[in-house]
């Protein structure tokens, strides 16, 4: 009694339980995986179609076909990890607030944010994750330069930063359900916000796009989350000026700030929670 739970072991238990649950409904799991992969292929088909008309996305941006596929692979990796680890939990969290089932999570002798964020892993997200890794490997073989070991290590680090930024945004949005009573449009809002990070930030460098660029780079840093790791692999890595270090440096700061802010929002929201059950 009174001992702190071993969080890593609890996480492994969550993963195993989720796998057992998914394997209980194998056909459903298979269809989920196939449909997720189909969506990846449809997107890939769309971009292949675009590149049959143009050599690059934007003039003099350096986002050629395979560079863009590295970007796409990075988006896939971050999205799949976020979907697998957190998406279903965030939706469930909103529902627990509405029904009052959050009481059970609050009573457990473990950090509530950890419990509600990770208790269910969506194994069907492994399909698109694998597609992302394959696309990454395939595209790396076709870009003009070969990333070094430092770039590879930094890439993994920044992908994880991207996952943390996305997670922070998602859990903050889900926590607002406590104040709103319900947040049925969580998935829609999530889709609309992350939609802005689907393309390289250079495409917004014109007219009204600058406003979007600043908002989604610095205030809701979804563009930072994807663009920093993607650029590490897609473009030659030769930081010489302060400006070259600015965005990667900001990405680290944005990760820490996003996590801290989301933790604060989560705890503030919990203070306002009134059980819905009788």
């Amino acid at each position: 009694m009174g001992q702190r739970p071993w969080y890593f072991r609890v996480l492994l238990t969550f993963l195993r339980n989720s796998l057992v649950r998914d394997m209980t409904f194998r056909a459903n799991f298979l269809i989920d995986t196939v449909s997720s992969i189909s969506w990846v292929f449809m997107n890939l088909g769309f971009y292949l179609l675009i590149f049959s008309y143009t050599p690059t996305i934007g003039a003099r941006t350096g986002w050629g076909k395979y560079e863009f596929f590295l970007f796409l692979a990075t988006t896939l990796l971050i999205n799949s990890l976020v979907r697998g680890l957190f998406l279903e939990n965030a939706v469930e969290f909103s529902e627990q607030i509405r029904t009052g089932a959050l009481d059970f999570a609050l009573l457990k002798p473990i950090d509530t944010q950890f419990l509600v964020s990770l208790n269910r892993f969506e194994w069907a997200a492994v399909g698109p994750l694998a597609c992302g890794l394959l696309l990454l490997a395939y595209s790396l073989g076709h870009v003009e330069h070969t990333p070094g070991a430092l770039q590879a290590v930094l890439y993994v680090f920044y992908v994880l930063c991207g996952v943390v930024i996305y997670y922070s945004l998602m859990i903050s949005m889900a926590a607002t359900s406590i104040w709103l009573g319900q947040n049925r449009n969580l998935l829609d809002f999530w889709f609309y916000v992350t939609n802005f990070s689907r393309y390289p930030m250079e495409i917004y460098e014109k007219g009204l796009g600058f406003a979007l660029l600043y908002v989604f780079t610095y205030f809701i840093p979804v563009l930072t989350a994807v663009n920093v790791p993607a650029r590490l692999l897609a473009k030659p890595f030769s930081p010489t000026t302060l400006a070259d270090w600015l965005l990667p440096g900001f990405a680290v700061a944005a990760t820490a700030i996003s996590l801290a802010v989301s933790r604060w929002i989560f705890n503030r929201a919990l203070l306002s929670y009134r059980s819905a059950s009788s």
Partner: protein
Amino acid sequence: MPARLATWWTILRISLEERLVYRGDFALGTLMRFLPIVTQMFLWWAVFEAIGADKGGGAVAGYTYHNMVAYYLLTMISRAFSSMPGLASGIAQDIRDGTVKKYLIQPIDMLGFLLLNRVAHKLVYYLVAVVPFVVVFSLCRQFFSGWPPPQTLLACLAFLLGYFLEATLGMIGFWLLEVNSLLFVYMLFSFFCSGHMFPIDMLPSPWRGLVEAMPLQYLAYFPAAVFLGKVTGAELVRGLCTQLCWVVFFIVTARAAFHFGTRRYSAYGG
């Protein structure tokens, strides 16, 4: 006949009142649905810039940048007619939990009832969504060359096609217990093949021929292409006739699915 008309009118009135409860949600949801088009506008701008079209260079599959943006905005109107959120999954749910039996014991035809319900849904949707649509289309008026030709109104057929196609899909629930995954797969294919994702005449052969042989193009691509003047004359007449044939096909299929489905349906419990 007057009694039947009175019933239909009552159903429509109740459905309208029910739908008006969520008018705020409708308006916000409609405005939000334009957001993905913003990113598409920037993506296509980057593509046209790369091929030098902004300096009088080429076009993409016959589309200028203005055409492309207009196309995406117009598919929003097509989808406002043809999309049937929750219809197929609602029918499948009614079959699974036994609610469908109310249509078997009451003198109300399920397809007719749900059609009126959907008409009410759309009427309220247009009433509320007209504000966000007017705002967005006014802001983007430079992408359009003028008012739509009268034949664009025939896009209303997309409503009937969307309704009977999705109703048929929902009634697969009479044969399969769980159809949600199947509906998700349909949604993916529909997004890609209806022209919602991109104009389907961008596709190379044989993919273009394959997609054009499906009814899905009439849900988004065809009405938008008619507006843009890409389908005219004999091609327009042929397209409309084919669309009408698909509507009739799905009316018959939906009726047959309900007829045979209710014959194998078993409901347990009270």
